[in-house]
């Protein structure tokens, strides 16, 4: 039986398939039965959809779809690598549906986020409070009727604190504790009750310790509330949202193409991968296939980004454990890669390099050579750091057996990427659902055994080597041909792109290396005026064209201005890539206009952090630092 038949046989009218223009598998589920459907899919169907990739919501207020909200579940089948999307429509008048926390631990945070952002409640959720915003915040910011720049500041003026304010603050904490005891989050209630019973016997009393949000050994803002029993962590509760920058709301305000700069700043250690993931989602929605060369370029740049990410992660981790030398060595290699990336993209870090339908600029002629030498340097540093760390007694002792997580818990909490692989599951999107041209390369997916910090460290070290291999192979195979595509998905050779130039010579013109005067009146301007890119193309014209020809300028103008430019047909699409920390997915919704109706990113470290407490409970307090380091939490992506 197909999945559809199985579902319909079991649930009848409560589950209906929704046709998807882009080929995703989508079912609409009655909200009251969502738990049963999920349970059935997780445990009994063939194939089993046993992994919750993402859970989010969409507010359809402006599209006129009734009911107003829909909660979206992205499921994944670990055995067959297939994806499935469930949609549970929820009316505005009664925004509540059953929780799926008993099935997947990661749903706890996802549902809290949906409550925070959309005001949709989940019946039976153990601890439904705000996640990204603060308690004083009124309203639900991702609802369409919340103005995107309505601020609710906590600090109102520039006057310094008065002593009385501090006293009031202490008073408030006391009061808070009293109310927490009766009505606070479950975890805190438990703790306070437990503590009361211990009162008087101070030797066995556990105590609370705040780590963060501004903590020396935590690169990234996060608040960990630890319950300590001596040196040991008994329980932990995490607070996030200290870098919430309204990425998803911001995407609804700007144009499709203008989202790229914001994606740079999600996981700012590997911005190119974010660029690629977003572009892939939009291209899926538009139904365009990019050119072969652009695919290779994207792969090369993604892998370079992955290397910088792992280098930074290990460097910072080692530094926090006291190994400053390793930090300096790796940053040196990273600096070299930054220079390389800068040569192609024009920026070191916030690159905005990928475009819908292609990339911003082609490789420079000496790129392969420079890239090879950079890879060589990375390998050298890798060797040196292996010598410094891998068998280093201190490092070894601090990493082995700490931050352990087992397979089942990791899956329960939706872990992906190196952290999941360290437990022994070799799930990697590049292998499981190959995208771009990853299936053409020969590379291995390293995985661990024990799921401890040391395994994660080794996995990352090995992944650097594997990424180097991919880059080398891609460079060797790099095909020629055009870089970008037009709206219909046809390939425009560079010379056709300029065909609209009314005078001859345009053919040779584009074969020339572009050395342009940045003004309209430069001595080369005559040539560049002749270039007239197709006004309907989705790809922004090259910068030198924009700056040097009126046609290019107009083309650019049209693509980024209100009401024209890229406007995919209404529809929804989900595309995922293997980010440096795990599956990075973009779910985009279009209503047919020139800006996104909703952009949802599935951040890999969000799920990792939602299960972080499981990794540190039982460890010593110093191990929290080591574990936090190997997770490689990036706040920009976590809080968005």
């Amino acid at each position, binding site marked *: 039986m197909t999945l559809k038949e199985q579902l319909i046989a079991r649930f009848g009218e409560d589950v209906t398939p929704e046709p998807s223009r882009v080929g995703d598998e989508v079912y609409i589920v009655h909200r009251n039965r969502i738990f049963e459907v999920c349970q059935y899919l997780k445990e009994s169907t063939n194939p089993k959809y046993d992994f919750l990739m993402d859970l989010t919501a969409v507010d359809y207020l402006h599209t006129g779809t009734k009911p107003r909200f829909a909660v979206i579940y992205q499921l994944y089948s670990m055995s067959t690598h297939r994806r499935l999307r469930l949609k549970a429509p929820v009316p505005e008048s009664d925004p509540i549906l059953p929780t799926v926390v008993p099935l997947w631990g990661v749903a706890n945070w996802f549902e809290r986020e949906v409550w925070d952002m959309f005001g949709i409640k989940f019946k039976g959720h153990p601890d439904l409070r705000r996640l990204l*915003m*603060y308690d004083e915040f009124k309203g639900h*910011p991702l609802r369409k009727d*919340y*103005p*995107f*720049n*309505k*601020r*609710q*500041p*906590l*600090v109102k003026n*520039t006057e*310094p*604190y008065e002593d009385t304010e501090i006293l009031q603050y202490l008073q408030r904490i006391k009061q808070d504790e009293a109310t927490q005891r009766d009505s606070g989050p479950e975890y805190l209630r438990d703790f306070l009750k437990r503590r009361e019973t211990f009162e008087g016997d101070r030797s066995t009393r556990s105590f609370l310790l705040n780590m963060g*949000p*501004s*903590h*020396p050994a935590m*690169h*990234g*803002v996060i608040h960990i509330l630890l319950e300590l029993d001596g040196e040991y962590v008994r329980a932990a509760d995490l607070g996030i*949202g*200290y*870098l*919430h*920058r*309204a990425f998803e*709301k*911001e995407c609804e*305000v700007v144009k499709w193409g203008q989202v790229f*700069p*914001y994606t*740079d*700043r999600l996981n*700012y*250690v590997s911005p190119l991968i974010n660029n690629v993931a977003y572009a892939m989602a939009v291209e899926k929605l538009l139904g365009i296939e990019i050119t072969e060369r652009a695919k290779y370029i994207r792969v090369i740049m993604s892998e370079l980004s992955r290397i910088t990410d792992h280098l*930074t992660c290990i460097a*910072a981790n080692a530094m926090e454990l006291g190994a400053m030398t390793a*930090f*300096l060595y790796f*940053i*040196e290699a*990273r*600096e070299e890669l*930054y220079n390389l990336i800068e040569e192609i993209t024009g920026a*070191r*870090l*916030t690159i905005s390099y990928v475009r819908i339908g292609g990339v911003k600029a082609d490789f420079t002629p000496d790129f392969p050579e420079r890239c090879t030498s950079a890879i060589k340097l990375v390998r050298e540093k890798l060797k040196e750091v292996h010598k410094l760390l891998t068998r280093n007694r201190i490092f070894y002792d601090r990493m082995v057996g700490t931050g352990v997580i087992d397979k089942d818990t990791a899956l329960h909490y939706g872990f992906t990427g190196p952290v999941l692989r360290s437990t022994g599951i070799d799930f990697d999107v590049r292998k499981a659902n190959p995208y771009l041209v990853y299936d053409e390369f020969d590379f291995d997916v390293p995985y661990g055994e024990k799921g401890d910090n040391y395994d994660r460290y080794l996995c990352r070290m090995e992944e650097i080597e594997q990424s180097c291999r991919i880059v080398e192979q891609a460079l060797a195979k790099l095909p020629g041909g055009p870089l970008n595509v037009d709206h219909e998905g046809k390939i425009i050779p560079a010379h056709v792109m300029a065909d609209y130039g009314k005078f001859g010579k345009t053919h040779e013109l584009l074969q020339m290396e572009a050395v342009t005067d940045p003004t309209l009146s430069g001595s080369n301007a005559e040539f560049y005026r002749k270039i007239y890119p197709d006004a309907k193309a989705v790809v922004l014209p090259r910068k030198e064209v924009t700056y040097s020809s009126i046609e290019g300028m107009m083309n650019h103008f049209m693509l980024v201005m209100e009401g024209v430019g890229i406007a995919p047909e209404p529809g929804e699409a989900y595309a995922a890539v293997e980010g440096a920390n795990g599956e990075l997915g973009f779910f985009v919704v279009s209503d047919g206009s020139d800006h996104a109706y909703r952009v949802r990113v599935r951040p890999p470290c969000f799920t990792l952090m939602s299960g972080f407490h499981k990794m540190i409970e039982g460890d010593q307090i110093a191990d929290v630092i080591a574990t936090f380091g190997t997770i490689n939490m990036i*706040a*920009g992506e976590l809080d968005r």
Partner: protein
Amino acid sequence: MGVKDILGGENFLTTRLDKAIGWARKYSIFQYPFVTACCGMEFMATAASHHDIDRFGAGLPRFSPRQADVLMVVGTINHKMAPILRRVYEQMCEPKWVVAFGVCTCTGGFYDNYAVVQGIDTIIPVDVYIPGCPPRPETVLNGLMLLQEKIEKGKQVY
């Protein structure tokens, strides 16, 4: 009564002393890196061997606000974070300076939305603004030198 008053207020001795102290202070900057976001990557790059912030006597970060004299605010500050930044600033001892690192801290940058503070100077005073998204290490060093100048020429508290 401060040391200055003991020495008899503004006179040749104290202006010389001011100069000497200014010179010393400018090369012994202990910074508190309040790192939140992407700008932190460039902060790291500035601190590491290529750009080597140590050359300017600002290599040693102090992770307690009470021991630091320059608060480096590196990265976006949102409204949830604002009270924390404010408290860290309050906890620092005089004399203290604040550097706004990155355009997010200067003006909110391109995050003009419900979550982000539109410039940290709406919550704490700022001495040097380093624009850029993120600023290149060279810009950071330039900013640091401006700060040194300010420290040297400013009125010395002791």
